[in-house]
């Protein structure tokens, strides 16, 4: 049908190695970007931007962080929530200590702190693998949560124990704090997530990304081909935690506005983990699909009854949507254990070869 690469000949390796070698994919991406950058800012309501799109982008970025570690480098982690917390607290401390520093710089720096913490808690990965490693990252989760509560310096000894986001401006326009409109916050996050996704895609297809996948697939062979496990694993932890850290900072500064330790608890680690598993391990597209599935779908489900003038209790609706989501998760995992991204890929593959399914 329409999804064909017939007639699209590659004459250079550069073309063949492009991120999206098939023209239809490039058009598809262009349409998505056009919707995100032009249509939504023009037509979407403030509610849609601030309760659906902003959290969706934040979680997508966190899912990319975890997916780099889990899906590409093969190291299990249950500490995503805490690593996001490190980014958020670092961002808060930096911007209150140096109020004049540009919020962009602060944001990028705060990722460095979570990367460093990620490396420290990644050290056990040199010795242990799989579920046992997951348990040590769980230790990171609890230890860091403890720090967020006990070390008052982190939240400037606020009585509430919460971090309150101050107003920060870029070129006179408020981007964080109470004065920032959902639209500016959305546009800011959208730019950050777009750029960071592109960077992740580039790193993953080059030497460094390959070294992570080598360690994931066959660590012995990787080592005999000159990959140092120490470098590969710790760089994966650093890179992944950087993404989680920035996502955490974005979450507090551009979405929640203030946060306590609950925002970074183990539930959030699991939430991101589900997004990665549902979306598809080892797929960047999957991160967005997973975030949409876990975050956006429930919001839409909850909105359905009121659209039909049904008056259900909010709590009832909450339960119904949890049940529906749970059933859908099980359904999708049975149909395709490798996640939505794989399902999407199989669909595209079928289209490419249609109506000759045996041609490859």
């Amino acid at each position: 049908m329409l999804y064909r690469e017939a007639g699209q000949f590659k004459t250079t390796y550069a073309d063949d190695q492009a991120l999206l070698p098939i023209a239809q994919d490039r058009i598809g991406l262009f349409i998505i970007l056009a919707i995100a950058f032009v249509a939504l800012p023009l037509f979407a309501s403030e509610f849609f931007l601030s309760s659906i799109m902003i959290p969706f982008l934040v979680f997508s970025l966190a899912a990319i962080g975890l997916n780099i570690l889990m899906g590409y480098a093969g190291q299990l982690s249950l500490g995503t929530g805490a690593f996001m917390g490190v980014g958020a607290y670092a961002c808060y401390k930096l911007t209150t200590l140096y109020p004049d520093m540009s919020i962009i710089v602060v944001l990028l720096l705060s990722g460095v702190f979570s990367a460093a913490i990620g490396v420290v808690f990644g050290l056990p990965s040199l010795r242990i693998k799989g579920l046992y490693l997951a348990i040590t990252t769980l230790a990171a989760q609890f230890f860091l949560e403890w720090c967020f509560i006990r070390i008052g310096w982190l939240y400037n000894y606020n009585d509430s124990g919460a971090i309150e986001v101050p107003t920060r401006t870029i070129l006179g326009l408020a981007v964080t704090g109470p004065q920032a409109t959902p639209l500016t916050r959305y546009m800011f996050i959208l730019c950050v997530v777009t750029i960071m996704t592109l960077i992740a895609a580039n790193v993953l297809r080059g030497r460094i990304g390959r070294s992570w996948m080598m360690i994931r697939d066959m660590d012995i062979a990787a080592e005999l081909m000159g990959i140092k496990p120490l470098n590969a694993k710790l760089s994966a932890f650093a890179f992944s935690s950087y993404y989680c850290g920035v996502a955490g900072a974005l979450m507090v500064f551009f979405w929640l506005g203030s946060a306590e330790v609950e925002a970074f608890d183990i539930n959030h680690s699991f939430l991101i983990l589900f997004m990665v598993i549902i979306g598809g391990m080892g797929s960047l597209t999957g991160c967005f699909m997973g975030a949409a599935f876990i975050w956006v779908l429930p919001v839409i489900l909850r909105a359905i009854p009121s659209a039909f003038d049904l008056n259900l209790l909010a709590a009832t609706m909450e339960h119904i949507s949890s049940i529906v989501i749970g059933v859908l998760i099980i359904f999708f995992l049975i149909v395709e254990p490798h996640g939505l991204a794989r399902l999407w890929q199989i669909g595209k593959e079928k289209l490419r070869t249609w109506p000759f399914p045996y041609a490859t």
Partner: protein
Amino acid sequence: MSATSETVATQASTNGTSVLLSVDNVTLTFGGVKAISDISFNINKGEIRAIIGPNGAGKTSMLNVINGFYHPQKGQISYKGKTRRRMKPYQAASSGIARTFQNVALFSGMSTLDNIMSGRSLKMKRGLFWQALHVGPARQEEIEHRAYVEKIIDFLEIAHIRKQPVGKLPYGLQKRVELGRAMAMEPELLLLDEPMAGMNLEEKEDMSRFVLDLNSEFGTTIALIEHDMGVVMDLADRVVVLDYGQKIADGTPAEVQSNQNVIDAYLGVAS
């Protein structure tokens, strides 16, 4: 027995050929099991050296010692004139030793192309910054290495599976991709652990042709473990025979074939 093997060894090294790797009195034990006991032999530059022996003789362990995956309790390995007691696997890799595995050890989640590209890891130098942007030097580097990898893909006749994930390929092709991955390292010494095991006749012929061409066209020195005597006799310049972790013979294929120890321990049983 030792008389013949020693004369062959000295002949080879005085015939103008230079020794690339020499194994001296290596002993390797696992708990109580002696996998290798006091073995010495050498590999000359440019030759195809076969290592044969019955199951459990210690052949794979020998390769693991050579590329630093196991550390022998006694003895030493000299490679390119340098003696190292403990070599790390990545040091072996960066000094030009590559290998394939008895049980295919490909990166199963990656495509054929990426598997072979991964063999270029050590030769790619660009850091995170350029990789992240994927413009300029990093892109240039990726394209240069892709060109080299395409040469290997042509050589091994696997262009049709270039973009396929290797996990789903038939066994014979997987072995070929694994050879390609090792070739991508441009090794001086290539260790092949039973590259033809489980193949049919035609696949074996293809693989033998690749090994011979690789040796003559690229000048790669090859150490080959193989159970098929026909293949060994045809390909190898010299053969070392192990049995129960000990060296029982060393010489040209013809000499080894007529050696009484070998016939008793191995060929006698097999034929």
